[in-house]
């Protein structure tokens, strides 16, 4: 559309750089992650607080990133089909709330309760988007409003806050000194999503639905079923993130998930998944979540206010989204 006339030499070089970036976007993102980590280390040393590039800090980064990683996993799947789920944060809150609400019934019961709630929320979103053709933005925002309302009513009735020890260990402790337990949750899920998207039938259909739903329908794919599955998965994954979150904080409150909403979209966008669907993948999102987590540490070290953080997050999403729009459009 906006083809700016350039000298042939420059545009050729630009095209090559562009191709390289598109082909190896995950590798580039990993480099950005490492660079950001080193920068944080330098800043931390400059402030006289010692090194940041230590095994403990690397481990802590992964521990934090698992929560965002799971939240943005569901978001990745939904965005690959061309949708968006703005209810992930409140679904995580609902998951966290269920864990502490049913904590006295044992860890297994509370975890199951949380996942079931995630499933129900995801199914409601999926039903609205896939069957009733509601715009995903409206559907997920509406469900999010409903969820937070119900949670507030429930919390006013009776709010026992007991987080089972297993969940606390899962969300905040490490084994072998450096390996966080939550990687045991995130790792397999991440592997399943990355491989599933690439090799399984449903994985290919998710890309297809995002790329051209009409062609998929004509090819005999039940598009609504694919969309339903994606939103249900997103709900369950968000609830799982909520379980890790409540384990990390050791208490649930009704605002526990809220700060993760934009980062969940940001991680996906940074990871190179197109908002229009059909392009991208979860590997990029994982690195996106890691980058955002380090960035958060850096901002904490720099003592940045909430205002500055919000502005910066918005600016980064915008800058990267426009960069991707430029590099991927022909």
């Amino acid at each position: 559309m906006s083809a700016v006339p350039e000298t042939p030499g420059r545009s050729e070089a630009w095209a090559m750089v562009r191709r390289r970036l598109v082909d190896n976007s995950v590798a580039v993102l990993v480099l950005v992650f490492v660079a950001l980590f080193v920068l944080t280390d330098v800043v931390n040393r400059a402030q006289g607080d010692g090194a940041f590039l230590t095994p403990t800090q690397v481990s802590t980064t992964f521990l934090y990133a698992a929560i965002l990683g799971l939240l943005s996993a569901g978001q990745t799947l939904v965005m690959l089909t061309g949708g968006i789920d703005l209810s992930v944060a409140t679904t995580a809150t609902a998951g966290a709330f269920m864990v502490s609400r049913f904590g006295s019934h044992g860890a297994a019961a509370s975890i199951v309760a949380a996942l079931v709630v995630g499933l129900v929320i995801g199914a409601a979103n999926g039903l609205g988007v896939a069957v009733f053709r509601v715009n995903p933005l409206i559907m997920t925002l509406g469900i999010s409003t409903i969820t937070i309302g119900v949670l507030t009513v429930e919390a006013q009735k009776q709010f026992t806050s007991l987080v089972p020890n297993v969940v606390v260990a899962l969300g905040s402790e490490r084994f072998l000194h450096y390996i966080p337990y939550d990687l045991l949750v995130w790792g397999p899920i991440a592997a399943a999503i990355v491989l599933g998207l690439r090799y399984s039938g449903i994985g290919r259909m998710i890309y297809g639905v995002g790329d051209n739903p009409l062609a998929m329908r004509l090819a005999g794919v039940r598009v609504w079923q694919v969309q339903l599955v994606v939103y249900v998965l997103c709900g369950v994954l968000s609830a799982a993130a909520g379980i890790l979150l409540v384990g990390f904080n050791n208490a649930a409150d009704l605002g526990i998930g809220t700060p993760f909403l934009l980062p969940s979209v940001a991680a996906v966008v940074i990871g190179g998944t197109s908002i229009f669907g059909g392009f991208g993948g979860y590997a990029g999102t994982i690195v996106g979540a890691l980058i955002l987590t380090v960035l958060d540490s850096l901002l904490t070290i720099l003592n940045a206010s909430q205002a500055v953080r919000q502005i910066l997050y918005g600016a980064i999403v915008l800058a990267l989204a426009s960069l991707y729009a430029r590099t991927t459009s022909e």
Partner: protein
Amino acid sequence: MTSTSLRPPLSGRIDWRRVVRRHGWTIGIVVLLVAFALYWRSSTSVPWGPFDVQSLAIDALPLAFVAMGQAVVIISGGVDLSVGSLMSLVNVLAAKEMAHMGYTSAILYALGLVVLGALIGSVTGAVIVVTGVADIIVTLAGLFVLGGCALAVLQVPGGAAPLRFQSLVTLDTVGTRWLPSAFVILLGVYALLWLTVRRRRLGLALYAIGSNRDRAYLAGVKVARTRIVAYAFSGAFAALGGLALTAASGIGDPNSGSIYTLNSVAAVVLGGVSLLGGVGGLIGPIAAALVLTLVKTVMIIKGVNQNWAQVIQGSLIVIVVMIGGLAIRQKGKTG
């Protein structure tokens, strides 16, 4: 575009079937509004008076304004998720600076903020046009950037607005006590900002790019410029909404606008504007804003927990949009 060719013969007779077909949804929402108002009246034990109309006007004004702006953007085929934060920003800017101003300078400052809103909106629109990034992403990022700006202006609720400025929305009436000046301001803005452009080149261009962007481009519509103008409208209306919030509450709160992002989209959809763009008007969203406000008022009068009221309001929005979705599907099958 088609309005001139489809206009009925000028015999002075109104073709009611055509009116119903074209404005059915808007008529429906107005009927719903009247039904709700009657129900509201029957459910209060105290006699119904001008005070009730006044309080409805105060409650509904911010939503009505922001829904009008959102409607313009959605008609043009976009969506503006940043309006909630823009309202907060205008709210804190107004409350922080206005406290010590006289009436006249407060009004001038308020007009300045509306211009600022339009500028911010046009910057958002320009970013969308220049970068080619989806409207949702850009305005979602804008939601956070502007929210951060609002926090930077005022960390905690505070500030004030001159009493004379507040009474514009909260106390003043025009002529009879039953006509709050808030409604007059609303209709005045509607007439000034929308009626003047709707049938002109710009208004038709807004509908055209929402209906089919490529064909509009081929027909000679300046698509990029029109999109930017749509977001400028949204910014100006969001600023008006923020000012209405300031006048109604009398303080500035960096989170005051956050609920309006969803509610504005909901009011627009309830008001008969298609999210696909190109269809609808601004009267529907205004009526829908009043309905959404009344639903909450009635429920609170009925003794429903305020949070349940939120749940019911959310469910109502989702159900209405679902029915709308089914209607579109039915139309798609027959047509």
